[in-house]
């Protein structure tokens, strides 16, 4: 079953055609990667899906809900979470608080005025957050201020924040950018592990190693248009991809 369906999306910035009639769909429960050279329109595409940018034309359907024109928090509330290229976390708060916030957002909706309850008495939220931190291996640091974490740990925290909401669809924008090889492999393992939860994932990635170890299907964007789509092995051998992506060099 399709969970996400993008049809005929166009987006221009002034004279620059960033997205040119993009059609794209994601099967539920799969991991799909979007690759492409720099400036291919990957981030624009993601931003159109998540409500940060409004596409000029076209529709983005999530199940039977249209995401076009929805606010970012509304899109999240229907079950789409996003990991950013540079980790977006609450850097002045502790790790456990960082996870409690999305957990409450999932449970209580986009606005709930619980001004007289004690947060630390909310066992449900607290346990869930602790469990999540354990999953990503950050539980010992639960009371540290998250701004003091290493870059890799910040990413893991952000991932945990998204996962704590049990999203139906998880969008990952270069989840391993700037990581060491060891950290990258850890992240791949982590992403594979959470694959078991049945979360559909769309990954935008530069690193072919990551793409080929995670994705079941790969979409190649170049100059705002989809030039190829298929299983990783097929994409590897596709001459059009090699031409666009690497200027002819072999993967």
């Amino acid at each position, binding site marked *: 079953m399709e969970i996400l369906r993008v049809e005929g999306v166009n987006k221009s910035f002034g004279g620059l055609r960033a997205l040119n009639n993009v059609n794209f769909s994601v099967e539920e429960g799969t991991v799909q990667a979007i690759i492409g050279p720099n400036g291919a329109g990957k981030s624009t595409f993601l931003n159109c899906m998540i409500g940060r940018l409004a596409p000029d034309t076209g529709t983005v359907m999530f199940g039977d809900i249209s995401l076009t024109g929805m606010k970012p928090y509304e899109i999240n509330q229907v079950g789409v979470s996003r990991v950013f290229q540079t980790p977006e976390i609450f850097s*002045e708060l502790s790790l456990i608080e960082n996870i409690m916030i999305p957990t409450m957002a999932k449970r209580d909706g986009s606005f709930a005025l619980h001004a007289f309850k004690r947060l630390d008495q909310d066992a449900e939220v607290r346990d869930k957050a602790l469990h999540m931190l354990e999953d990503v291996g950050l539980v010992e640091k639960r009371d540290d201020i998250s701004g003091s974490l290493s870059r890799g740990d910040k990413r893991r925290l952000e991932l945990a924040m998204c996962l704590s909401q049990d999203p139906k669809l998880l969008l990952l924008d270069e989840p391993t950018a700037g990581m060491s090889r060891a950290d990258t492999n850890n992240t791949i393992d982590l992403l594979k592990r959470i694959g078991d939860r049945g979360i559909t994932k769309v990954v935008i990635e530069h690193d072919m190693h990551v793409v080929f170890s995670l994705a079941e299907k790969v979409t190649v964007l170049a100059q705002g248009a989809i030039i190829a789509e298929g299983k990783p092995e097929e994409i590897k051998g596709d001459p059009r991809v090699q031409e666009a992506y690497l200027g002819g060099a072999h993967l």
Partner: protein
Amino acid sequence: MVTKISPARDYLLFGVFAIAVLTMPVWLAPIGAGYPDLLQKFAIFGLFATGFNLLFGLTGYLSFGHAAFLGVGSYTAVWSFKLLGMNPIPAAILAVVTSGVFALAIGYVSLRRSGIYFSILTLAFAQMSYNLAYSVLTPITNGETGLRVLESDPRLFDSSANADGPLISNLFGIEMTGYAGFYFCAVVLLIGFFIAQRIFRSPFGIMLRAVKTNQNRMNYTGLNPRPYTLAAFVISGMYAGLAGALMCITDPLAGAERMQWTASGEVVLMTILGGAGTLLGPILGAALIKYFENIFSAFNEQTLHEVFSFLPDFLEYPVVSVAGLFVGEGWHLTLGVLFMLIVIFLPGGIMEGVSRIGRLFKRSSSKAEPSGATAPAE
């Protein structure tokens, strides 16, 4: 970290705070601050700053127009005296309601912008209120003279208080001046502090901190920052309105100068001085500023000469003339200098200073302290 503080510790903090506030007449007497007028100011401005801190300290939105709500609260209280009678309780309740409505309207518009744009919007609204209170709104505010209660006012539920003498707010016969007035303000402050404490520890409180830290992440986490911030703005406006009402309860006169932007600046100052984002800081800041204002502005050349009389004459005169700049009329100079020093050297305010000293003390006394992050003093 909010989640690290246990309920028991909070009740202890509240208990100690309550005792400290209620016994202020005793322990502040030796430093010359034990008299009711000043104590009332401590409580009133402490409440004002506590409310301001709920907005600025938690969400980081710097309002430069909070004095407007102080003024609205004051006018409402005096009108309540004029129409309903001199009982402080309806006055306080009505002041909270009207200032809340005002804050809702102003906040709804101002919060469409952030950063300095928000500050300027709130400033603009406050200046408009101030200018209007002085000019066209004179029928409501009595312009420059200030609004006061007159013998001829209806005071519906106050038939018993038709006796002669000045009209003073009274709670079932207890006149709200002197120590009675202070204790009324102190109780209101304690209620205000208790609510603020609960907000600090609540899910709502953590959402407000999230607004300050990263609104983008908040949006992509499924949370709408706007209503959270607006709620904080309204609550903080209500605190200001209540403080304004207390001013009139202890002295039934409301003037427009209360709404001027310098008054807004004063509460910013108090909050920063004590430590924005901490529970006790703003109250401490308010008390310190009011205390020093009182002490310093009472000094004059004569008293300075007495203070420095131990110096040899050739030193005494220059010292006195320099010190003279900072006292009496020049008190604001002291305030300005103090303010700069705090912002430059202690951006976290006095509470940060206290926790720094506390950490130093801890480190030297017990090296075995586990390496967890040290909680800021609250």
